[in-house]
């Protein structure tokens, strides 16, 4: 009998909460400014990643080191051997190195006047490389030229020794070869490492305007007082607000994931040696994983905004709040903290790890995801209760 009474009361409470939910969702989804902000950020960052990677590949493909050689007639073989893929060698009869560096050449190689004669006499003729170190691409060009000259030098030494009957193995105790063992997905992880952080940031940015409007905004307009005068529990008001705010944040994150996955085929990932490994189930899992986090972000933003003195104050505080998690995640990344074990239960940190793995098609432990999500939901419940307490504060009312 008592159980039936309790159920009826719970049903009534739920029934009274539905119109409140409708009000919060209508208010949130009709706020054009908040929607534009949410959609813009959600689409902007995948577009930036796609554009950025395309630009990187294009730049890499088009990257040619231009080298001017002065006095190249003294060393025609050298000039000929330097030419090759990624190098454009132009032999000039005269010119001034400084002015040539200002004319689009990254390096100027000056061959000394008596190079030919000194080379024949084994007198190590000098070669001068002119470089403008204030030019950002000069360092890479200089390294490339030095590598090529070193390889050429090694070839000449070998030939000279062979001509004198010396075994070249004497000069080369070992042969060094570098082999890249990274998998395509791992290389993808490197490129996409910033995506989880940006997805989490999307949750904050996409819901910021709504969270301020529904809490500090309502307080300032005194419509919050009207709401508090209704026969509803404070936790119901906070929950309805949280759901409306989270819906925008979550939608923003889902849009970002969708845009990213749709843009991936257009990105020149293959040219970077990356195969697209994000699976459909991975995308679906990412969406589900972000839901509890969207709720937590929403309720935390509402809590902070309710504590603010004004609408403007709330905006400032929340702008700082949205940077904080990114700083934390970056700090953990830089400190190379091992994020195994109990870290998997920490909201944000665990989400970043899971998203990173899912993006590159790695398998993520389902029990770990369930446990981590349960912890996040517990944090949500605690934050809702804190929010309900904040709503009961007398200082919340303007004139009080």
């Amino acid at each position, binding site marked *: 009998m008592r159980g039936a009474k309790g159920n009826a009361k719970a049903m009534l409470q739920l029934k009274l909460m539905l119109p409140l939910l409708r009000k919060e969702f209508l208010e949130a989804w009709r706020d054009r400014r908040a929607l534009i902000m949410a959609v813009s950020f959600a689409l902007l960052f995948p577009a930036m990643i796609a554009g950025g990677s395309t630009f990187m590949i294009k730049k890499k493909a088009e990257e040619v080191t231009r080298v001017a050689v002065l006095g190249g007639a003294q060393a025609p073989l050298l000039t000929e051997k330097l030419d090759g893929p990624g190098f454009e060698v132009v032999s000039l009869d005269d010119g001034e190195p400084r002015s040539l560096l200002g004319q689009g050449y990254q390096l100027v190689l000056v061959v000394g006047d008596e190079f030919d004669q000194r080379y024949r006499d084994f007198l190590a003729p000098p070669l001068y490389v002119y470089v403008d170190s204030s030019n950002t691409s000069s360092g890479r060009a200089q390294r490339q030229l030095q590598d090529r000259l070193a390889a050429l030098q090694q070839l000449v030494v070998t030939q000279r020794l062979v001509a004198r009957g010396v075994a070249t193995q004497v000069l080369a105790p070992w042969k060094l070869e570098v082999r890249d063992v990274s998998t395509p997905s791992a290389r993808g992880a490197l490129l996409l490492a910033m995506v989880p952080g940006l997805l989490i940031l999307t949750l904050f940015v996409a819901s910021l305007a709504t969270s301020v409007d529904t809490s500090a905004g309502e307080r300032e307009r005194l419509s919050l007082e009207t709401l508090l005068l209704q*026969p509803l529990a404070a936790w119901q008001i906070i929950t309805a607000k949280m759901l409306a705010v989270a819906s925008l944040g979550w939608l923003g994150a889902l849009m970002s994931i969708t845009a990213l996955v749709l843009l991936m085929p257009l990105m020149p990932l293959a040219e970077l040696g990356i195969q697209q490994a994000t699976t459909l189930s991975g995308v679906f899992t990412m969406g589900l994983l972000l839901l509890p986090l969207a709720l937590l972000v929403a309720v935390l933003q509402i809590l902070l905004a309710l504590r603010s003195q004004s609408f403007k104050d709330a905006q400032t505080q929340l702008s700082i709040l949205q940077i904080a998690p990114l700083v934390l995640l970056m700090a953990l990344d830089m400190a190379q903290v091992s994020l195994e074990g109990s870290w998997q239960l920490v909201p944000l940190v665990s989400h970043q790890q899971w998203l990173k793995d899912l993006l590159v098609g790695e398998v993520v432990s389902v029990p770990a995801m369930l446990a981590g999500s349960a912890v996040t939901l517990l944090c949500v419940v605690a934050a809702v209760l804190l929010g309900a307490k904040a709503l009961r504060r007398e200082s919340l009312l303007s004139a009080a």
Partner: protein
Amino acid sequence: MIQVQGISKSFAGQPVLRDLSFEVPDARITALLGANGAGKTSCLRILCGLLRAETGQVLVGGIDPAREPQGVRRQLGVVGDREGLYERLTVVEYLDIFARMQGLSGAALKSALASVCEELELQSLWRRRMGGFSQGERMKVSLARALVHRPKHLILDEPTRGLDVLAVRLLRRTLLRLRSAGTAILFSSHVMPEVAELSDRVLVMSQGRIVGRGAPDELIAETGSENLEDSFVALAYGERTRMAEEVV
């Protein structure tokens, strides 16, 4: 009936209400008069359960708002000192939502909405979003929200502020009809002719205390004044002057 017995309240150690007692009987319009800072809004907020009194007791229809705020809010209609509207909702959405929060549904909801729409002449505003409404339109919608669930008690905090003549007339007509229907009405105002015309009883507040109570004519006679405004000044500011003299 609303019963207030010996309530006190202070903010940051500053007393706002001091041992306040009064009654708001059913089927009567009671006006609460007081200068700015007299404690009117704090008093009304305690009646609604938004603030808690430090001493004393409040009963709204026999229910203590401090103990059972939700029970009190079901039988209370409140128009605050600002309208508390949502600019992105239409009038019908707004009223429908608040009526449902009060537990109305089905035919009762439909009938309640139709009734407030007609009584407060909201037809032309019905499907318009509330952003950009005039002060009069905002007040009408706010009053409709307070009345849609047909509360037994109505509290209005300066309801005529910024209203034009037609809106004031409509408000007056509505309040008189509600009084006839048995509603206990408590409203605060600064507009003396309106208080004199509308109210059955007047409570004059000063420095958090009731310094005068009675029918408008009784107060005028009691203070030997020519009208309610003079009577109010004598009661409210005379009291303040007297208290200042006591301190000196």
